[in-house]
């Protein structure tokens, strides 16, 4: 019925609107996706050939040489390992910390609940700033150390509140009956609450993992001089900075010089793709959980 109305009465103005809208949206689609495809094509193209220009979304002379070069580079493989390590450890620690705190906050009978809530909320609004934080980490011995990647970001108030709001919706009787059976709070948390929270924990784990994988500034500021602790994102930053400041691509050259046929620009594209691929792999899951989680969070707040 409604279909009949909509097509029957589609005026010329409406048709114009549709055409305009399709053109606009196609434009947005192209603008969003083209840079990725272009970089992918260049990374898979012979770098001598790339200099001739004209590569759009298909490689002209296909090669895996650019990738071979970066995986032969000692610096980059170390960086890749550190990136993976910080993502795995950071996610585990963060997940444990946030879910434990969330559970204590979801317990309505817990007397520390209000105070802890307040302390947490405040962290969303205050920040010491770059230098006080730097000085603190230095005093704590976190400079030039792996732990600076995973410890400072361990508790995130926002994640705690998301997990808590999920726990709030679980039936309270489950805990009551477990308590009757003599289970203590840790046991209730571990064997009753956590298994039920899998969906929200998966969401938060992905949140934390993507954040860990993508961060580069902490490496730059705290571990910039510790070569064995640099991350992939930071290596990419270095290449980016050296090529754009016109220092004749000094850094990319270091990696590229061993292989005559590989240019810094192609190396840059290949590393870019390597840093994007893990995100693409988890993207379907991100999509499914994130969107739900985000809209849920928005309705709550």
């Amino acid at each position, binding site marked *: 019925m*409604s279909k009949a*109305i*909509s097509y029957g*009465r589609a*005026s010329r*103005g409406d048709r114009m*609107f*549709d055409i305009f*809208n*399709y053109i606009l*949206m196609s434009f*947005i*689609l192209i603008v*969003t*996706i*083209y*840079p*990725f495809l*272009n*970089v992918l094509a260049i990374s898979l193209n012979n770098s001598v050939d790339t200099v001739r220009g*004209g*590569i759009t979304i298909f490689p002209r002379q296909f090669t895996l040489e650019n990738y071979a070069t970066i995986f032969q580079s000692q610096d980059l493989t170390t960086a890749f390992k550190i990136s993976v390590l910080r993502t795995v450890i950071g996610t585990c620690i963060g997940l444990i910390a946030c879910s434990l705190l969330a559970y*204590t906050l979801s317990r309505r009978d817990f*007397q*520390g609940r209000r105070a802890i809530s307040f302390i*947490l909320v405040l*962290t969303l*609004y*205050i*920040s*010491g*700033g*770059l*230098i*006080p934080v730097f*000085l*603190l980490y230095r005093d704590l011995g976190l400079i030039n150390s792996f732990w600076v990647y995973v*410890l400072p970001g*361990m*508790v995130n108030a926002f994640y705690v509140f998301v997990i808590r709001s999920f726990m709030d919706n679980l039936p309270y009787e489950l805990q009551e009956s477990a308590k009757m059976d003599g289970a*203590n*709070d*840790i046991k209730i*948390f571990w064997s009753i609450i956590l298994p039920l929270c899998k969906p929200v924990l998966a969401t938060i784990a992905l949140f934390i993992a*993507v954040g860990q*994988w*993508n961060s*580069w500034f902490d490496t730059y*500021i705290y571990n910039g001089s510790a070569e064995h602790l640099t991350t992939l*994102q930071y290596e*990419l*930053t270095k290449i*980016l900075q050296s090529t754009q*400041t016109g220092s004749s691509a000094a850094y990319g050259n270091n990696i590229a010089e061993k292989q005559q046929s590989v240019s810094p620009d192609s190396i840059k594209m290949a590393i*870019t793709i390597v840093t994007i691929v893990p*995100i693409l792999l988890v*993207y379907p899951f*991100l999509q499914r959980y994130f969107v739900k989680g*985000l*809209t849920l969070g928005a309705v709550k707040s």
Partner: protein
Amino acid sequence: MQTVSAGLITQRGVKTRRFFRTAIKQRYLYLMSLPFIAWIFVFSYLPIWGWTTAFMKYKPSRSFWEQEWVGLQYFKELLADERFYMVMRNTLAMSIMGLVIGFTVPIIFAVFLNELKGKMFKKSLQTISYLPHFVSWVVVAGLVYKMLSTDNGAVNDLLMWLRIIDEPVQFMAKETWFWGIVTLSDLWKEMGWNSIIFLAAIAGIDQELYDASRVDGASRFRQIWHITLPGIRSVIIVLLILSIGHLIQIGFEKQFLLGNPLVVNYSEVLDLYALNYGLSLNRFSFGTAVGIFNSLVSIILLVTANALFKRYSKESVY
């Protein structure tokens, strides 16, 4: 009188005793939360104490009690520095541009996306539009540089092909364009993601309203104006409030990564100023003073934006 106060004391005594008795009963809950609270104090609250650094001539070798206090000297230095005013201008300009563009465009995108008839196209565009949100700023900066580059950058190639320009433009070297480039890069990265909530809100609008308006012969624009936008009004207001709150996090990642020495007069924001003229030169006190100023600016921005907002809508951030 005495009996009353005595009663109070015993009452308080009972209360404390009850508190401790419950505390013992809930010892595991304390065990589960207190270590992390301690952690929060160290990593989130201790740096606030570090603000004292701005008021002393900080020497790393001395303990806190042996530092030489200099009052507001570093703030005076800051206000006397010409560069500081330029940095202030950049910070304000980019955060306000980011708020205006970064807030309105996702709404328009959501509304137009919703008007698409093809389900497949709509779904895939939606999925693809979130992708840039999940890649790091490092990658985005790399893509922006690549697209705007003078040798075979897509934008220059396209403009040349369309004969709008005769020779490639050095986009990243034009300082007056930097604010625009940062704002547009940010938009490219976050537009799809920021539209999610608006799309969800639009999906919640009663379809019958559209059908009825169609019977009345309303055009698509009128439908958008009289049904869609009023339908998501409350969501728009809530999110506007939230993004005004986010003015506090001005951010510096994009300016750091997209900037270069040629445009530094337009790319340097307060955080980068603190980094370049404080931390990098070991002028810890000066850098902290910049940081404190940054917080002050954020709060002033927040309060002003909120006041303006309140005047027009009678709703408030706090």
